[in-house]
C-alpha cells in the first residue's frame, strides 16, 4: 500500500493505493490521524485504488469517524470498488458512513 495525501482549500483527500489489510492498517491509521489533526472542514478518503479491504481497514475508518465527529470535520468515503463496498455492506456500515461514488461528489455533498 502507498498513501497519497492531497490538501485542498477546505478538504484533505487521503487516497491509499493497494490492499488495506492488517499488514498496513496502522500505516493508514497514521495518515488519517495526521490529516485529522489539521482540522480540515472535510476529510475525503478516496478508495478508488483499493481493490481489497478487511476489517482492520474498516476499523481504522470507524476510528477516524469517531474522532472527526468530535470536531467540525466531515468524513466522506468515495469511489469504493465492489469488493470493498461488499465488506461495508456485510458489516452494515454502508449506512453509517457517508459514501459517494466520485471525489467531485465527496467535495460538494452536504
Amino acid at each position, binding site marked *: 500500500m502507498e498513501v497519497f495525501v492531497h490538501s485542498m482549500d477546505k478538504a484533505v483527500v487521503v487516497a491509499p493505493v493497494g*490492499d488495506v*489489510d*492488517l*499488514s498496513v492498517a496502522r500505516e493508514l491509521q497514521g495518515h488519517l490521524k495526521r490529516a485529522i489533526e489539521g482540522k480540515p472542514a472535510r476529510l475525503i478518503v478516496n478508495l478508488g485504488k483499493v481493490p*481489497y479491504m*478487511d*476489517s*482492520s481497514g*474498516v*476499523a*481504522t475508518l*470507524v*476510528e477516524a469517524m*469517531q474522532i472527526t465527529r468530535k470536531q467540525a470535520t466531515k468524513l466522506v468515503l468515495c469511489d469504493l470498488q*465492489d*469488493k470493498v463496498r*461488499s*465488506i461495508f455492506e*456485510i*458489516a*452494515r*456500515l454502508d449506512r*453509517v458512513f457517508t459514501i459517494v461514488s466520485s471525489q467531485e461528489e465527496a467535495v460538494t455533498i452536504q
Partner: protein
Amino acid sequence: MTPTKPQSPTMERLDRDFPLDAVPHTPPHVVVELFSQPRYLSGARDLVSAVAKRFGFDDAVCGQLALAVDEALCNIIRHGYDRRPDGRIWLSLWPVSEDEGQPHGIRIVIDDLAAQIEPDHIKGRDLDDIRPGGLGVFIIKQVMDKVRYEKRPGGGMRLLMSKLLPAQADEQGGKR
C-alpha cells in the same frame, strides 16, 4: 507437519452427507502452512479466492470467502499468537463432494497452535455498538454457511467452515 494430516494417501470421493463442520477423513486437496505474519495474508486469501473460483463460485463470493479466511487468520495472528511472528497456521481446503469434477461447495479448516480459548467466548459484537474492531467473527458467520470453533486435542484452536454453491445450498437449505 500439518495437524490435518491425511489418513489415507489415496483420494476418495468426499461423502456428500459428511457433516459440513467436521474434518473429512480424506486428505485436504490444498494445505497452506504459514507463519503468523500479516504480510502472508494476501497470499492466503488470493489462493482461497482462486481455488473457490475453480470450484465454481462467482467472483463476488470468491472475494467474500477470501475475506472470511483473512479475518480468521487476522484473529489468530492478533489474539491467538498475540502478534508473535513465529506462530504456525494451517489452512486446509477440500471440495465438498463432486459430480464429475464439479464440487458442491468448499470446506475450509484453519488450525493453529496458539493458546486455547473457550469456543463460546469467540463471538462477534453487537453491530449497533459501532466501534473500531469487533467485526471479524461477525463477517465470518455472515459469509460462510457453517462455522464452528473447537479446541484441538493436541493444543491450539481449530476453525471449521464451509460454504455450498448456490444450487446445492438451495437443495440442502443452506444460505445463498
